[in-house]
């Protein structure tokens, strides 16, 4: 409570308010300090006051032995997982909690951690959360309170920046890579403003919006955006701007998008060591899109193929029959965590290929690897041929 109160004071909030759910990013093991913090709280007997789901951890709890994870890391990461479960958090272990039964509802006041999930909860669902940093999400869950400030309040949710897509052809707007690419650009352009995008005019899937949320919260600090005619607080432009005029209008050109697309790739050659999909965690719908691409094929012996997802989604994929083609292809699956949050990759993995802007954005710094960005089909084709293949016609 002391931490919440100090944060309220800093944020200029004059009161606290109740939340009815939380999503906890703090269970990611990053070192001894976060473990000490977790065990300090659980040792005091702390317990969450509202339903609280857990984001990814630092470990695939029952599958880490297959990878390069040091046993000492595994032991500590597991202690941290246990500490949060002891406090009553629900171990869904996923960065896509909005694709589980813990999904919040429109207008619900929640305290969510995990940058992509915050953007999704606010923008796509219309639930209300501030950008909660690790260590604060759990304090909010224990007290059931947050500072009454920021995106919890209607007046702070209006867009002030308008992004227009007047010159972007429909075939680009229908391309799956459009969403992570536009998201990356939105994160860069937004600075501290809430932006609204006008002119998408096709209906994106939930997974495309997920990819956009992951991108926008990697390249920037965007916790809320509006897609006019698509997201729930932006049925119209007036809606998104709460009746006011935009403070700034930016026109997005094809060249802006191509430049953002290029930024997602750091490697220049054809070589690759591994394809990794699933940041945010793969959904059942994505498994079902992937399965026919893999059917009857096998990966090249020099290219690993990995999908990261949650325990729950893995089970659904298995039951639906969409997992078997991945196994037959020579692919692997990791749950509870991802390649960025557990030290699972062998040091000989130098070049990754992915369709995730978030993997692409963070892998060079966190994993010291090069990355190639492409569509799901490009990733599969590259894994089969053993060299980078990109049929990215619309992005040339």
């Amino acid at each position, binding site marked *: 409570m*002391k*931490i919440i109160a*100090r*944060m309220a004071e*800093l*944020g200029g909030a004059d009161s606290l308010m109740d939340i009815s759910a939380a999503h906890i*990013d*703090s269970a*990611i093991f*990053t*070192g*001894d*300090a*976060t473990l*000490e*913090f977790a065990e*300090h709280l659980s040792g005091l007997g702390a317990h969450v006051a509202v339903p609280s789901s857990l984001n990814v951890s630092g470990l695939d709890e029952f599958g880490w032995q297959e990878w390069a994870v040091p046993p000492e890391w595994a032991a500590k990461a597991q202690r941290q997982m246990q500490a949060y479960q002891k406090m009553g958090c629900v171990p869904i272990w996923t960065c896509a909690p909005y694709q589980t039964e813990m999904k919040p509802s429109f207008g619900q006041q929640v305290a969510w*951690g*995990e*940058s992509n999930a*915050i953007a999704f909860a606010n923008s796509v669902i219309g639930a209300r959360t501030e*950008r*909660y*940093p*690790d*260590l*604060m*999400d759990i304090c909010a869950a224990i007290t059931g309170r947050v500072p009454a400030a920021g995106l919890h309040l209607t007046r702070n949710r209006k867009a002030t920046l308008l992004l227009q897509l007047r010159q972007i052809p429909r075939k680009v707007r229908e391309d799956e890579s459009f969403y992570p690419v536009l998201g990356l650009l939105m994160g860069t352009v937004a600075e*501290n403003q809430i932006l609204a995008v006008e002119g998408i005019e096709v209906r994106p899937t939930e997974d495309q919006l997920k990819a956009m949320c992951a991108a926008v*919260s*990697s*390249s*920037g*600090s965007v916790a809320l955006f509006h897609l006019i005619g698509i997201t729930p607080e932006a049925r119209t432009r007036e809606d998104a701007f709460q009746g006011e005029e935009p403070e700034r209008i930016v026109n997005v050109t094809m060249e802006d998008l191509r430049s953002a697309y290029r*930024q997602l790739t*750091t490697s220049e050659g054809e070589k690759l060591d591994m394809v990794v999909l699933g940041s945010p965690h793969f959904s059942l719908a994505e498994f079902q899109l992937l399965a026919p691409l893999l059917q009857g094929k096998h990966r090249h012996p020099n290219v690993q193929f990995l999908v990261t997802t949650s325990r729950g989604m893995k089970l659904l994929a298995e039951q639906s029959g969409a997992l078997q083609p991945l196994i037959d292809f020579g692919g692997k699956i990791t749950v509870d965590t991802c390649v*960025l949050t557990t030290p699972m990759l062998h040091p000989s993995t130098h070049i990754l290929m992915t369709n995730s802007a978030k993997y692409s*954005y*963070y892998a*060079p*710094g*966190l994993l010291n690897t090069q990355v190639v960005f492409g569509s799901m089909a490009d990733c599969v084709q590259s894994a089969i041929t053993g060299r980078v293949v990109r049929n990215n016609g619309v992005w040339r």
Partner: protein
Amino acid sequence: MTIRGRIVVAGVAQGEVLASAEPLSFWGGYDQRTGEIIDRRHPLSGCIAAGKILALPSSRGSSTTTAILLESVKLGTAPAAIITNEVDRFFALASIVAEELYGAPIPLVALEEADFDALSSGQHVQIFEDGIVEVQ
């Protein structure tokens, strides 16, 4: 030059400035083992920020920025202080928890934009308990 800043977390520090106009995510952007800035798209990529006065407009990106900054306090690789141009809740929380757990808060000062822009890498600055930043 003397600048009056807003105290976010009070403390004293002095050292060499490492400054950028580009926000930084510490997760994926700061190596807690060495204090190196490792966001390969960031202008300060490759610089060591441990023990320096790090001047950034704000944090960005990942929620785990707080955790990495706290880890760096424990490992002794944190910046000596952080100067921002707006109150950054992520840095503030890491510093507050560092105080609770280790009695070692990171001094944080927020400056007006023009004052922030006047800082550049290589300057020597001293930060006082009352939020005064003295640039030598």
